[in-house]
């Protein structure tokens, strides 16, 4: 990076450190923080979308749809989320390949599961064997995002389902008295009012989502945990210009501080948002604000 880094053996102290922390590998490490932020930016809205459909279908009058919605909400209560992460990454991949296999190779007559192998025809493989490395990485990241969205969608569905029930019943009755259909009541009365009830749950969910991002490592993505492990490990002088001992502890300390800062900043912003949204509301929070100003 810097011009004086040409011969690391002659350096010492802070100059050595400044060269060490700007090697190409470290740049990739810093970029992987971007991966985490990208995951959050994509997952948060898509999980909200999954959650919205989950909550809406749990309220449905058609019982198979309602059962599906309620089952989706209930299942994550009893089972560790990490199990879901490990399950969905393989299951989604195999599911996609199976569908493509059915469509692309209709005259394939052998079973797909042969002993311990999962065999689909060559055209159905995802991603195709001859594609570039970055396609594989993007596909892996896409699977991870989908997995996160499904799992956190269930949590969000739980929050939104509760929020929909918290909207005062009189509002719904009034809408019915005005002759609104069920669909109109849902979109015009229920959905606009539920957000203030959902916000505490959703902001809690955001904190949980932030703290779940290191689990990307388990899904096989080269994220910050991956880089912290590989960069921090003992560096042998034979293979690197910057030999050092086992520094993994310090790398993970840095990650710990990163997450502490991230959650603290989120907390401050969410508090502000809550203050803004409760202003003028007929809730105890809104009442407290009124008393302060009065």
């Amino acid at each position, binding site marked *: 990076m810097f011009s004086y880094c040409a011969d690391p053996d002659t350096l010492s102290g802070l100059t050595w450190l400044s060269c060490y922390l700007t090697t190409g590998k470290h740049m990739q490490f810093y970029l992987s923080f971007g991966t985490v932020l990208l995951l959050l930016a994509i997952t948060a809205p898509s999980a909200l979308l999954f959650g919205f459909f989950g909550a809406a279908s749990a309220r449905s009058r058609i019982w198979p749809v309602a059962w599906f919605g309620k089952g989706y909400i209930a299942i994550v209560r009893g089972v560790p989320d990490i*199990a879901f992460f490990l399950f969905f990454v393989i299951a989604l991949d195999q599911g996609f390949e199976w569908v493509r296999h059915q469509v692309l190779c209709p005259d394939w007559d052998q079973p797909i599961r042969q002993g311990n192998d999962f065999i689909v025809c060559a055209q159905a493989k995802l991603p195709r064997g001859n594609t570039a490395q970055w396609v594989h990485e993007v596909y892996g990241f896409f699977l991870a995002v989908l997995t996160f969205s499904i799992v956190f969608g269930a949590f969000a569905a739980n929050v939104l389902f509760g929020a929909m029930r918290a909207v005062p019943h009189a509002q719904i009755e009034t809408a019915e008295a005005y002759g609104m259909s069920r669909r109109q009541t849902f979109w015009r009365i229920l959905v606009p009012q539920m957000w203030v009830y959902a916000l505490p749950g959703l902001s809690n969910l955001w904190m949980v989502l932030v703290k779940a991002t290191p689990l990307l490592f388990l899904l096989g993505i080269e994220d910050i945990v991956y880089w912290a492990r590989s960069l921090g490990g003992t560096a042998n002088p034979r293979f690197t210009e910057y030999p050092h001992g086992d520094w993994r502890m310090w790398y993970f300390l840095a990650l710990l501080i990163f997450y502490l800062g991230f959650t603290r900043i989120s907390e401050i912003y969410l508090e502000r948002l809550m203050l803004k949204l409760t202003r003028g509301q007929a809730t105890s929070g809104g009442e407290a604000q009124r008393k302060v100003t009065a």
Partner: protein
Amino acid sequence: MSCWQTVQDYGLRSLGIGERLLPREGFTLCEQVTLIGSGLLWNIYFGALALLAGFFLATALAVGKGAKNRAIRKSASWFIFVFRGSPLFIQFFFAYFAFLQLKSVSPAFDPFTSAWLGALIVLFFNTAAYSGEIFYGALRSIPKGDIEAADAYGFSGWPRFRRIVWPTMLRLAWPAYTNEAIFLFHATTLVFFSGFPAWQQRGDALYYANFFADKTFNPFVPYPILAGYFILLTLGIIAFFGLINRRLNRHLPQSARRGLKLRINIIR
């Protein structure tokens, strides 16, 4: 090989008792159910001990966070913030590598690098921080009248805390604390995925489920088995905590008793 034979061979495999080698091929349903169930023993071990020890530290932290002394208040708040504000996964990694460093200083830290002690300590601190925050919230919502009545009866200091404040705090915090217990048991599945080695392949339930999914390349059998075990475990926790909840609320009139209304609030 009959299923009963498999249970005898692998039922306590996660503790190192029984058959040494894990099955290599032709994985039967029985083997999967047995081994995953055997791994569940570790989850129960981590969860139960961390919860039990964490309960006492959590009470201390809650009282500390509400203390008048600034030093005590600040240190309790920081402890809670550090453990609640960072992911458990990173805490495990950090603790494991920190113990590795300490091990090179003194062999006394040798057991800390294995999961049974090192991971237990992290879980203990973690659950203490989360429950401490729950208890602190409950402490602040104890009805003013209860404290005033205690004062009027001449209670003060330790007897007042022991007989009035603490039971009321537990009663108010219990539904949230039940939730915390459920998620603590779920969090124990992270242990063997976060640095701590599964020595001689003695792992927890998720470790074995992952082992089978990798070997058979079929996630649709081991993970539902794991899910079944955990749903049973969760129901067990709810039943056990429900019993305590009934005892805590036994002085209240029947209609005023609050059932355990559970909701999702925290995972790490």
